[in-house]
Structures are given as structure tokens and as C-alpha cells.
């Protein structure tokens, strides 16, 4: 009996250890906004380098930032850039590399069973819907934007995120530029107090709420709307043009980005001017520590740097397949410059790769 227990224990330890030493395992977490793209990158990258296993946990931007600060993941992803407080919790702006990896569009997806055609909305109306001031789809303000399209009398259920979300960050920041009352009452952040409506966890959860609730309207990333064939509204941009969210219109929003980028490569993409610019767009940022020697595993640190470099360059070719907006060349250059700062106790990790 003792022998059996000893052997069993040894076997378990051996199994455990063998899987620890073989493949390099990277852990990332955060934004659900980028999850479809990230999953695709991971699959493609692992095809090329089967020894590297990357696990990305889609837990929301807030979770990604928290995990990054606490060093429970190797890289975090978020549609909201780190704020001052989060930078200082992570060890200061000098200790962190923050790069945009992709851009995307946040769309107001809706569920109107008898409605045909494309719904048109503008910022102030959308804000009032989410403030609970417009309660029914047959409200004249919505009708004014959609002349000739009959709207049913159906209660509006705004669907929002329950978790800490970069998508919420982008959406609320946009609405804050459109409605002073929204800015005062709800504010712009990753997690806000929504007046009423229905909550879902992750982009996945909100998509599901919208799909299953007639009269619902929720803010989700474009890829989720397209993959699940959920109709979404066409938005009026800062120039008064009604623009449908696509990979191109989100890219158009990103064109101006480099000029607006701060020292940490963060730039707001919402409410931009320009032809065919979609107004509710945003970057997804990835953060890593600049000095990766804390990982105590040099191959792993090299893999992190290599993966991120690949994703921001070669990986961009996959972007439009999934209806994300690839980074413009100027932004890619900035990303490469930032990633070149990744080092192992001072010696650069990325020089060997490019």
C-alpha cells in the first residue's frame, strides 16, 4: 500500500514537472474586445512555433490590467490605456512598455425583430438611450434619424458590461463627448454605474443579451456582431456623415492616431474628424514590463518579445479577415520602437529578431 502511494506521488510530480519543462508557456489576459483576434494570433503563431504555448484569458480589460500589475500574467491586453495610478502600481511609466496592437470598432448592436434595413443613430440619441431617457423604440428622436423606416413600439433595454471593460471605456468616452449629462451622471471609465438596463459579462455576454432580448441595444466589438450576425446601427460621425463600422472606417480613425499619441503610445480614436471615419473606434493596448528578467526564464522572455513583435507586424495581415483594423505603418513603427526597449537586465531582447 505504501509502495503504491509512493509511486503514485512520484508519477504525479513527474507528470507535473515534465509539462513544466517542455514547452514555453506564455500567459496573457485581458480585453474581450481583442479576444477573437488574439485567439487567432495565438493559433497562427503556435503553428509556426509549436514549442510556444500561449494561453490568453478573456476576462475583460480591467482584469487584464490588474493581472498585469500583480504579475499574474506575462502580458496584459486592454482597450483602455493604463492611467497614472495604474502606471505607478505597475512600477512607473519607465518600467512598462505599452503598445497598441490592433484597432477595432465598438458598434451599437440591436435586436429589433421586425425592423428591416440599417438603423441610424447619432451620439446624443445614443447617450440618451443609455441614460434611460429614451425608453421606447418609437421615440420621435429615433424616428427623425430614420425617416421612412417604421419603428415598432417596443421597450428599449440597454445592455452593458458588468465587468471592468475597455469596450466600456471606449464607449463611455465617446458618449461623454456627445452628452454633457452623460459625462456628469455616468462618466467615462472601464466600469461605470449604468442607470438600469441589463448586464452581461464580457463582449460575449453582452452579445448574448442582445441576441436573446427583443428591444435590446448593447455596445460590442464589431467582430462579435459580424460573427453572430447581430445587426448594428450606423453612426453619425463628428463631420455629420453616417458611417458604418468596418475594418476600413476604423482604420480611418486610426490614421490621425500617431499625431495624438502620448509618450506611452496611447491615443483616443473616438469622435475623430475625417472622411469615412467611424466615430466609436479604439486601440487595443498590450502591456509588458520593460525588464523581463523577473520572469527568471530567458527563453520565455524572448518568446514574449517575439510574439508581440510578430503580432504587431506579420500578424496584422490577419486583421481584416476578422474585421479588425490593422495598425498603420506609422503606428507599427512606434510599436516596434517601444518593443525594442524590452530587455533582460539591460540586454535587448528584440534585436536578434528583426
Amino acid at each position, binding site marked *: 500500500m505504501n509502495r503504491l502511494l509512493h509511486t503514485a506521488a512520484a508519477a504525479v510530480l513527474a507528470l507535473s514537472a515534465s509539462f513544466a519543462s517542455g514547452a514555453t508557456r506564455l500567459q496573457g489576459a485581458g480585453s474581450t474586445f481583442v479576444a477573437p483576434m488574439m*485567439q487567432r494570433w495565438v493559433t497562427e503563431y503556435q503553428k509556426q512555433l509549436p514549442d510556444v504555448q500561449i494561453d490568453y*484569458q478573456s476576462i475583460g480589460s480591467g482584469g487584464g490590467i490588474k493581472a498585469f500589475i500583480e504579475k499574474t500574467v506575462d502580458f496584459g491586453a486592454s482597450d483602455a490605456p493604463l492611467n497614472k495610478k495604474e502606471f505607478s502600481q505597475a512600477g512607473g511609466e519607465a518600467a512598462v512598455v505599452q503598445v497598441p496592437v490592433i484597432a477595432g470598432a465598438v458598434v451599437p448592436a440591436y435586436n429589433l425583430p421586425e425592423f428591416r434595413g440599417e438603423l441610424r443613430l447619432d451620439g446624443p440619441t445614443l447617450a440618451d438611450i443609455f441614460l434611460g431617457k429614451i425608453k421606447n423604440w418609437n421615440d420621435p428622436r429615433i424616428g427623425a434619424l430614420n425617416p421612412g423606416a417604421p419603428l415598432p413600439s417596443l421597450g428599449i433595454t440597454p445592455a452593458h458590461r458588468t465587468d471592468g471593460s475597455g469596450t466600456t471605456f471606449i464607449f463611455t468616452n465617446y458618449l461623454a463627448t456627445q452628452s454633457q449629462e452623460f459625462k456628469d451622471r455616468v462618466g467615462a471609465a472601464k466600469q461605470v454605474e449604468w442607470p438600469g438596463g441589463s448586464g452581461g459579462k464580457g463582449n460575449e455576454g453582452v452579445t448574448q443579451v442582445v441576441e436573446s432580448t427583443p428591444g435590446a441595444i448593447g455596445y460590442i466589438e464589431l467582430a462579435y456582431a459580424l460573427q453572430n450576425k447581430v445587426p448594428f446601427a450606423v453612426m453619425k460621425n463628428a463631420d455629420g456623415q453616417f458611417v458604418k463600422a468596418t475594418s476600413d472606417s476604423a482604420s480611418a480613425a486610426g490614421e490621425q492616431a500617431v499625431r495624438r499619441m502620448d509618450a506611452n503610445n496611447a491615443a483616443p480614436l473616438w469622435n475623430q474628424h475625417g472622411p469615412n471615419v467611424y466615430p466609436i473606434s479604439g486601440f487595443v493596448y498590450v502591456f509588458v514590463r520593460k525588464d523581463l528578467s523577473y520572469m527568471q526564464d530567458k527563453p520565455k522572455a524572448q518568446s514574449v518579445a517575439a510574439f508581440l513583435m510578430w503580432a504587431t507586424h506579420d500578424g496584422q495581415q490577419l486583421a481584416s479577415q476578422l474585421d479588425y483594423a490593422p495598425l498603420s505603418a506609422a503606428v507599427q513603427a512606434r510599436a516596434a520602437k517601444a518593443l525594442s526597449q524590452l530587455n533582460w537586465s539591460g540586454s535587448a531582447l528584440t534585436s536578434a529578431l528583426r
Partner: protein
Amino acid sequence: MWMGCIACAAIILGVLALVLWYLISIGRQSVNLAFFAQDPQPYGADGYPGGMRNALVGTAILVGLASAVGVPVGILGGVYLSEYRTRAWLTETVRFTADVLAGVPSIVVGILGYELLVVPLGHFNGWAGALALAFIMIPIVTRTTEEMLHLIPGSYREASIALGATKARTIVRVVLPAATGGLITGVMLALARVAGETAPLLFTALGSRLLTFDPRYPFPSLTKQIYDYATGPYAEQKQQAWAGILILIVLIFSFNLLVRLFTRPRQFRA
């Protein structure tokens, strides 16, 4: 009025039938070989949606690790309550605590696991999940062990002592073997309960889309994967969730059935 009572029972069973019928019928369509043999694939990749092999293995490992801790502690605790009871206040308090612990919401157990085992270690890990499950198992196994040991007649123990055995020998060689059926019952009930838990794993093991045997990192589990898929929008993943639920229910049902089979032939005349 008695018709009302029959109606109550009928309605309850009717609802049970409704719930089970729904889960079985949607699950049946999605259970196939791929479900057991493949790991999850993301949308758009080849082989989407894949299967839930990693989650099945993950739950098996988590429950196994939880039992490795929970079963010995639970059985020994039950042995104390039944055989030793050296101090009355301790015995009463432990018994009370076991009952009370059995009613703690499992999400609070998950939070404890997070604070004690995830934060200090630096990342979500399977060990935290397994130990959170063990936390839930221990009170159940303790109490059922105590109850089962109480059913063993005192004459067994007296005969053993009369033959010169020490107390420890009596317990290990006489009492516990005699109660084996009942002990297994208790363990299986605890296993069935723990295999179906989701909340304690939400922020301890977190979950993973990879097949992994390393509990030092985020670890997949059937229940968490079902939850993720069911609350998401992707139709194929939702079907996988139904299949997973069916497997889970079949598992739990068989455990409960086996428990019934075990308890019947081993009833002792007190």
C-alpha cells in the same frame, strides 16, 4: 387536500422532467467523438469549435487533487468525531463547524482561495482551485464518515480490544473496513458535489483553453468552460456547453445511483 399533495409531488417531478429532458435533448445532439478527443479551437481557426477534452481532463485532475487532500482529512476528522471524542467541547464544536461549513456559499470559498493561494503565488493556479474544492469536500466527508462509523455496532470494537488490539489497530483494521461501503458513499457524494461546482473555480483556477497537466498555472475545468460557452454568443460553442452539461449530469446521476447501490447491501442491524 391529499390530492393537492399528490399534485405537488407531480408538479415537482414534472419540472425535474422538463429540466432534464431539455438538457438531455440538446446535449445529445452535440456529444460526439470530437467532444472527447479534441481541445477547443477559436472561431475562424481550423477545427472550430473542437472539443472539451482539456476541460474533462481538467475537472478529473482538480477533483483528484481535491480528494487527495479532502478525503484523508475528512475521514480522519470523522474518525475523531466517532471514535475518539476526547474532549466534549472540541467534539461538539467540530461537529457544529462541519455542519456550518457545509452551508458556506461556494463563491465565498473561492474568494478565500483567491486571497490565500492566488495572490501570494502571483497567478491563478490549479492548486488554488483544487484546494478550494477540498475545502468544500472536507465537511461533507467528515460528517458522513461520522454517521457511517456510528452505524458500526460497538461489539465489533469491544471484540477487537478483547483480542488485544490497540485502539488504532481496531479502527484501521476493524471499524473502517466494516464501514467501507458507507465511507465510499460519503466520498462519492462529496465528489459528485465538487465535480459540479463552478463558483470556487472562477477566481482560483480561472480556466484555460489548453490541455494542461500543470496545476501551477490557470487550469481548465468542465464547469467553467460550460459557463463561458453558455454565456457567450457563438452557437457552436453553446452546443458544446449543452454536451458538457449532459456529460456532467450523467456523471452525477451515476454517482448517486452507485451510492444507492452501495448503501443498501451494507446496512447493519443496529
